[in-house]
């Protein structure tokens, strides 16, 4: 195991996060605070409680998930697309590092940043709404698992993309709609029965539901199902990455 390589790539990636602190951390915090003010405060006060939880508090897990999904994909994809774009990828490809080490370092750094942002948003949220976390360990498990899985998904997009346009295509066209329709802002039980069934094909539903359960013990789907679906998505991403490195897809000619 080339531990020095993992450390070096991880430190290098994290240094970029801290160098671009405003863009990396302050902007997601500000945008989330706006959500709380608008949905939690202004509109939320007119919305009745959901399963005994005030709308503002109900929003918190969904908003954190929304940020984590977006951030993980954007960090994961940028971290590998940028070296490909500017050509510095030659060094990683010519170095004595295994695909596993490359993924651990890049995805690890992207996931770390997501977890940091998730934690900061959680802290920010506690300023606006009364929070309780009934299952902190489960909460942490969902936070970490989702960050890793979606950073990995972003990493795959970063390898697949051949232009900046493609890089933002999947997040904009697929992930954002799935997140908004995945019960981040509402309980799917408010939907007509037919759409409740359709929504179960949306993987984000499981993430948000499981994460929300760890806060308030309310969920749209069973928490073990949520965990299984998250794990399944992780396995799918690992399998795709395995194929990418075996074939050299988009990395090696």
């Amino acid at each position, binding site marked *: 195991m*080339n531990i*020095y*390589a993992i*450390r*070096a*790539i991880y*430190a*290098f990636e994290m*240094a*970029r996060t801290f*160098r671009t602190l405003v863009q990396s951390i302050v902007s997601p915090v500000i945008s989330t605070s706006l959500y709380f003010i608008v949905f939690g405060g202004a509109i939320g006060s007119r919305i009745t409680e959901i399963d005994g939880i005030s709308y503002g508090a109900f929003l918190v897990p969904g908003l954190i998930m929304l940020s984590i999904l977006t951030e993980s994909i954007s960090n994961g994809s940028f971290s590998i697309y940028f070296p490909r774009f*500017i*050509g*510095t990828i*030659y*060094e*990683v*490809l*010519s*170095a*004595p*590092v*295994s695909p596993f080490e490359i993924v651990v370092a890049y995805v690890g750094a992207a996931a770390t940043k997501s977890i940091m942002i998730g934690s900061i948003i959680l802290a920010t949220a506690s300023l606006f709404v009364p929070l309780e976390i009934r299952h902190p360990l489960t909460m942490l498990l969902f936070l970490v698992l989702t960050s890793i899985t979606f950073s990995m998904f972003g990493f795959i997009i970063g390898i697949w993309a051949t232009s900046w346009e493609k890089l933002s295509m999947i997040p904009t066209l697929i992930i954002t709609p799935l997140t908004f329709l995945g019960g981040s802002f509402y309980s799917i039980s408010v939907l007509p029965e037919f759409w409740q069934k359709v929504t179960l094909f949306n993987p984000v539903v499981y993430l948000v539901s499981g994460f929300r359960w760890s806060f308030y013990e309310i969920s749209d789907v069973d928490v073990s199902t949520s965990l299984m679906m998250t794990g399944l998505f992780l396995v799918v991403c690992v399998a795709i990455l395995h194929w990418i490195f075996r074939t*050299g897809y988009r990395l*090696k*000619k």
Partner: protein
Amino acid sequence: MKPIIRIEGLSKVYASGFKALNDINLDIREGEIIALLGPNGAGKTTLISIVCGIVNASGGRVMIDGHDTVKDYRAARSLIGLVPQELATDAFETVTATMALSRGIFGKKPDRAFIEDVMKSLSLYDKKDEKIMALSGGMKRRVMIGKALAHEPKILFLDEPTAGVDVELRKDMWNVVRKLKASGVTIILTTHYIEEAEEMADRIAVINKGEIVLVEDKDVLMKKLGEKQLMLHLMQPLGAVPPSLAAYSLALNADGTLLTYTYDTRSESSDITQLLDALDSAGIEFRDLETRQSSLEEIFVNLVNSSQVAA
């Protein structure tokens, strides 16, 4: 001596169908500087890229100090430093940060002092905290070399290191390369500047259209280079070279009007005076004379052309 790099039957066909390399066989000796000389598109960069693991080979194999570059890539790659042709740098990072990354990726323990030594040897030290995007093209080129040297490689690939570099930097680089060679590093240099190959290399491999056309010690090539010809345009055509001149290596052209004497400029005496005296005694008069010397460039162009004709 066991070669430090052994390339066996290496071939590369790109997905487009373009055959970039065709059955390349080449042994590179430890501690030498070998120049891969060839026109643009000859396959130099593809060859280097396969050895370094950036491009997959279609056939054949490469051994680095006994390690297969595919099966035993960790051991093989940790010995190699690569300075690619394109200036690809982390524009927003400092010189120190990018060099520390290079050292780490290649599995070496962080060593600030060593990195600073490398920077000093490349006259980069006073730029160590500057962002790479603020540096000039020449300085960026130094950073690329610094990155390759940051992990103490035993083998260094320099792909067109002085393309687009000014004279001063070129001289500096040659000095760095000489120092590296003195410390035992094997250096593989690709270039299409013959002057560079002539100045630096111990051996020269000429590559054209994906094939190695020639591998020769530079001295042997230079000996060919040292050959000079004296051409005498005769007043009266000769049927044959007179026996009295048999001691000289003379050649007569088909119509007997041009006598060519081949000699070595580096030998103690070229016997030109004696030859001219002998010609005078034999009653051979000439109306003009000229000398010509083949340059490495000429040898190279001939090789490349003849390989094209053969193909």
